[in-house]
C-alpha cells in the first residue's frame, strides 16, 4: 500500500492543536494514515464550521461531538458518524471540595451558581443529562455562562461548580490547588456525566454520500484512525513525544524528553510481549509513577491530560458507538427542546460497519 | 483676450430662503489688451462678476464670451486673484507662488528660479520659506499676487489686489503691475475700492450700482501712458477722479 501514491486528505479538528489530538499526530508520524493511502493534514476550526464544511463537501473528514451530528442532521446536513473516538463522555461537573461548599451529591447543587461555557455544545447536553439523572432541571440551579474559562472563574470562587471536560480542567484546578493558587478551595471533586448516563461523544464524521461512493476510503480512514488511537493508548510516552512537533508550548525540557524516550522504548518492548488491556492500563500508571518521581506536577500536567484522555478513549473495541448512547443523547436534546420537533433517524446518524470491517 | 458679457445676472438663495439678486443684469465689453477697473459699493456683486468671468460661477442668465467663445469653465488663459489671499496653509510662500507652475508641469528648478526672481519685487525675499500663518495680511496678499503673475495669463482678473497694503507699497506694486501689463498685451479686469487707483491704472472705469450691481457709469480714462505717480496731482486726473466719485455718489444718493 505504502508504495502507491498517497491521497491528500484533510481532517478537520476543533479547538487548537492539543495533546488530546495526539492519536492524529501519531497517525501521521508513525504512518498509520500513510499505510492506508492517506497523506493527512490537520486543520482546527470551531465545531459548527467543521460540521458545515464536511456537510458542504468541502472536506471529507471531521471530528465533532455526537450531539452535533443529531442537531445538524435535524437541519438538513447529511453527515454520518462512523467512528466513536471518545468512548466515555468527556464532560463532567467540577465542584468545590471539602473546604469549599462541600458538595457531595448533584442534588446539593440546588440554587447554587454553576458555570458553563455557554448554553450549547457537549457541555450543555452533558449538564442537562447529569441534572436529569438527579431529577433536576436547569431551573433548579443558577446557571451562568463563563466561556471556556472554568479554572479561572472556579478558583476565583465566582461559581460553586463548573461544567468542564473532565480530562483537562479538573487537573488544572487541582494543580492550582496544589500550588496554593486556587483560593482556599482545597481539592475539587468531579462528577463525570459518564458515570450517570452513557452519551455519544466525539467521533469521526463523513458526508453520507461518501458511504456509498467512497466506501473504501471511509473504511481506510476508520482503520487508520483506529490503529493510531490504539497506539496512543498503548504508548502515551510516544504519543507525547510525537505531539511535541504539533503542539507548540508543550513542556519539552531535555531531561523530560530523554526520560520519555526511555520510557517509550521500554513500553515498546513491553508491548512486544502481547500484554492484555488491563496490563497496558497498569503500565500507564507505572509510567506516570516513574515520571512523578523525576518531575513535578506542573511539568507533567499535559502528560496527565493525555493519560486522562486515554481513560476516556480506551475500550475493548475502539470506535464502536452504542445505539443506547445515541438514544440517551437524543433524549437529552429533546429535553432541551433543541430539535424543534423534527424527527431524527438515529440509525442513519451513525454506523459501526467500518469498525467491524477494521477489526478483521 | 476680448471679453463680452451680455445681460449677465446672478441670483443666490437668500438667507431667508428667497431669491437674492446679487448681480446684474449687466453687459460689458472689454477689448483685447484693455485695462478695466470696476468700482462699486460693498456687496454689489463685483466679486461675483469676476467669478463669472473666471468661469467659477455660472450666471443665472446671460452669456459670457471670451474671444467669441462662451465661457463655461475656467480657462488656462485666465488667471484670477481672489479677494482674500486664499493661500494653502501647508505650502510655504515659494510653493504657494509656484503652485500654478507645478500644475503646469514646470520642473522644480525652473519653478524656484522663477519664484526667486519674483520675490524681491514683492518685497518677500526674506520669506520664501515662511508659511502663510507666519505672514502679515499684506504679505499674504502679495504672495497671492505673485501666484497670478507667474501664470502669464491673457486675461487677468484681480479682486482688490492691493486692499491689504499700505499706501506706498500699494502705489509701487500697482505701477509695477502696470508696467508688466503694458509689455504683455494682457487684458485686465480689476476690482478696487480706491478711486485714485482706478483712475491711475485703468483705460476705463466701470462704476456699479448697489446690489444687484449694474453699470451706472463707464468712464474712459484717456490719460497718457506710461502712468506715473506724479499724474495723481495733475488737473486731468483730478477731473476724472471727481467724475468717478460723483458717479458713485449719485448712485448712492
Amino acid at each position, binding site marked *: 500500500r505504502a508504495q502507491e501514491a498517497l491521497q491528500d486528505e484533510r481532517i478537520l479538528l476543533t479547538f487548537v492543536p492539543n495533546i488530546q489530538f495526539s492519536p492524529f499526530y501519531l497517525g501521521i508520524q508513525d504512518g498509520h494514515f500513510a499505510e492506508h493511502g492517506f497523506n493527512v493534514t490537520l486543520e482546527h476550526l470551531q465545531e459548527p464550521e467543521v*460540521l458545515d464544511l464536511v456537510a458542504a463537501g468541502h472536506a471529507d473528514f471531521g471530528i465533532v461531538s455526537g450531539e452535533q451530528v443529531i442537531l445538524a442532521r435535524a*437541519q438538513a*446536513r447529511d453527515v454520518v458518524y462512523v467512528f466513536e473516538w471518545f468512548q466515555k463522555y468527556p464532560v463532567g461537573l467540577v465542584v468545590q471540595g471539602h473546604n469549599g461548599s462541600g458538595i457531595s451529591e448533584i442534588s446539593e447543587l440546588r440554587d447554587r451558581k454553576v458555570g458553563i461555557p455557554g*448554553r450549547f455544545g457537549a457541555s450543555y447536553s452533558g449538564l442537562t443529562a447529569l441534572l436529569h439523572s438527579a431529577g433536576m432541571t436547569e431551573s433548579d440551579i443558577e446557571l451562568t455562562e463563563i466561556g471556556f474559562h472554568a479554572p479561572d472563574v472556579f478558583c476565583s470562587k465566582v461559581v460553586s461548580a463548573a461544567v468542564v471536560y473532565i480530562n483537562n480542567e479538573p487537573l488544572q484546578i487541582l494543580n492550582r490547588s496544589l500550588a496554593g493558587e486556587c483560593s482556599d478551595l482545597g481539592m475539587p471533586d468531579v462528577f463525570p456525566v459518564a458515570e450517570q448516563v452513557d452519551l455519544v461523544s466525539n467521533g469521526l464524521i463523513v458526508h453520507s454520500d461518501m458511504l456509498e461512493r467512497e466506501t473504501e476510503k471511509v473504511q481506510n480512514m476508520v482503520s487508520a484512525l483506529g490503529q493510531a488511537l490504539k497506539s496512543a493508548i498503548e504508548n502515551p510516552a510516544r504519543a507525547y513525544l510525537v505531539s511535541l512537533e504539533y503542539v507548540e508550548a508543550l513542556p519539552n525540557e531535555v531531561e523530560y524528553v530523554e526520560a520519555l524516550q526511555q520510557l517509550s522504548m521500554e513500553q515498546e518492548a513491553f508491548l512486544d510481549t502481547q500484554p492484555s488491556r488491563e496490563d497496558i492500563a497498569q503500565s500507564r500508571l507505572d509510567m506516570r509513577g516513574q515520571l512523578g518521581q523525576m518531575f513535578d506536577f506542573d511539568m507533567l500536567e499535559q502528560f496527565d491530560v493525555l493519560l486522562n484522555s486515554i481513560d476516556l478513549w480506551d475500550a475493548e473495541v475502539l470506535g464502536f458507538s452504542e445505539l443506547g448512547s445515541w438514544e440517551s443523547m437524543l433524549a437529552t436534546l429533546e429535553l432541551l427542546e433543541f430539535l424543534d420537533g423534527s424527527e431524527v433517524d438515529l440509525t442513519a446518524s451513525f454506523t459501526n460497519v467500518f469498525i467491524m470491517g477494521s477489526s478483521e | 483676450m476680448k471679453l463680452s458679457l451680455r445681460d449677465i445676472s446672478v441670483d443666490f438663495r437668500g438667507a431667508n430662503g428667497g431669491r437674492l439678486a446679487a448681480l446684474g443684469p449687466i453687459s460689458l465689453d472689454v477689448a483685447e489688451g484693455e485695462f478695466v477697473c470696476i468700482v462699486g459699493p460693498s456687496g454689489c456683486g463685483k466679486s461675483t462678476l469676476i467669478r463669472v468671468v473666471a468661469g467659477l460661477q455660472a450666471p443665472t442668465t446671460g452669456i459670457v464670451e471670451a474671444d467669441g467663445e462662451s465661457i463655461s469653465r475656467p480657462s488656462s488663459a485666465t488667471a484670477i486673484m481672489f479677494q482674500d489671499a486664499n493661500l494653502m496653509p501647508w505650502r510655504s510662500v515659494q510653493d504657494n507662488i509656484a503652485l500654478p507652475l507645478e500644475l503646469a508641469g514646470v520642473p522644480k528648478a525652473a519653478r524656484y528660479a522663477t519664484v526667486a526672481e519674483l520675490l524681491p519685487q514683492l518685497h518677500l525675499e526674506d520669506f520664501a520659506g515662511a508659511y502663510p*500663518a507666519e505672514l502679515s495680511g499684506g504679505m499674504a496678499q502679495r504672495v497671492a499676487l505673485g501666484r497670478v503673475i507667474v501664470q502669464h495669463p491673457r486675461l487677468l482678473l484681480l479682486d482688490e489686489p492691493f486692499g491689504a497694503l499700505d499706501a506706498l507699497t500699494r502705489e509701487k506694486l500697482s505701477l509695477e503691475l502696470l508696467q508688466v501689463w503694458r509689455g504683455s498685451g494682457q487684458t485686465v479686469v480689476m476690482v478696487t475700492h480706491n478711486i485714485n487707483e482706478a483712475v491711475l491704472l485703468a483705460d476705463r472705469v466701470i462704476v456699479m450700482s448697489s446690489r444687484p450691481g449694474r453699470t451706472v457709469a463707464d468712464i474712459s480714462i484717456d490719460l497718457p501712458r506710461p502712468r506715473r505717480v506724479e499724474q495723481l496731482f495733475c488737473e486731468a486726473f483730478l477731473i476724472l477722479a471727481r467724475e468717478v466719485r460723483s458717479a458713485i455718489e449719485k448712485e448712492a444718493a
Partner: protein
Amino acid sequence: MLLLLLVWQLITAFGLVSAFLLPPPAQVLDAFVEAVSSGLLARHTLTTLEEMFFGLLLGVSIGLSLGYLIAKAPLLEFILSPIIVAFQSTPIVAYAPLLIIWLGSGVESKIVTTAVIVFFPMLVNTIAGIRAVPPQLQDLMHSLNARPWQSFRHLELPSALPVILAGLRTSATLAVIGAVVGEFVSSGSGLGHLVTLARNLYDTPLVFVSVFTMTFIALSLYGAVALLEWRLLAWRRRSSAS
C-alpha cells in the same frame, strides 16, 4: 439593497452555495416571522440594545472628554497613548476571564466591551478635530475672555464637529460588534448569544435573522448619526451651495 437581495435570491435559486450555508431569502423570512412572533428576537435585541446604549454612552463620553484633554495637553498624549493603544489592541478574549470574574456574564461586561471598542475612534477623532480648530478663532474667544467651557461650547465643539461626527459614525457602527463580541465570550442573552445558539443548533436561517437584526441596528444608528450631522452641519450645506 434590492440588487443585493436579487443576487442572493439567484445564488440560492441556482444552488451555487449549499442552502445550509446561505439559506434562500424565503427561508430567512420564515425564520424571521417565527422569531418575531415568539418574542425571541425582541428579547435578545433588547439586551443587545441595552448593552450598546450604555456602552456607547460610556465609550463616547470618555472618548470625547479624554480626547479633549489630550488635544489640549500634548504631554498627556505622550503619557496616555501607550496605555490607550494597549487597551484598544488587546483582543477581548485575552482579558475575558477577568471580565467575567469582575463583572459577571450579564450586561455589565458587554457594556465594557462595547465602550472599549467605541471609545477609540471617538478619542482619536476628537483629538484631530480639536487640534484643527483655527488659531485665529481661538484668539477671538480668548480676546472675548471666554471661559474654557464657553470656548468648548461655542468654538471647539462646533469647529471639530465634522471630525467628531465622523468618529461617531465609526463608533456607532462598531458598537454592535462590541456588544456582540462581548456576548460571544459569555452570555445568556443578546443577539450575539442568539447567533452562537443558532450556529450551534445549525439553524442557519436564525443566524441570518440575528445578523440582519444587528445590521439593522447598525444601520439605524449610522442613519441617526448621519441625520444628526445633516442637522448640525446645515451651515456647511449653505456655504458650499453656490
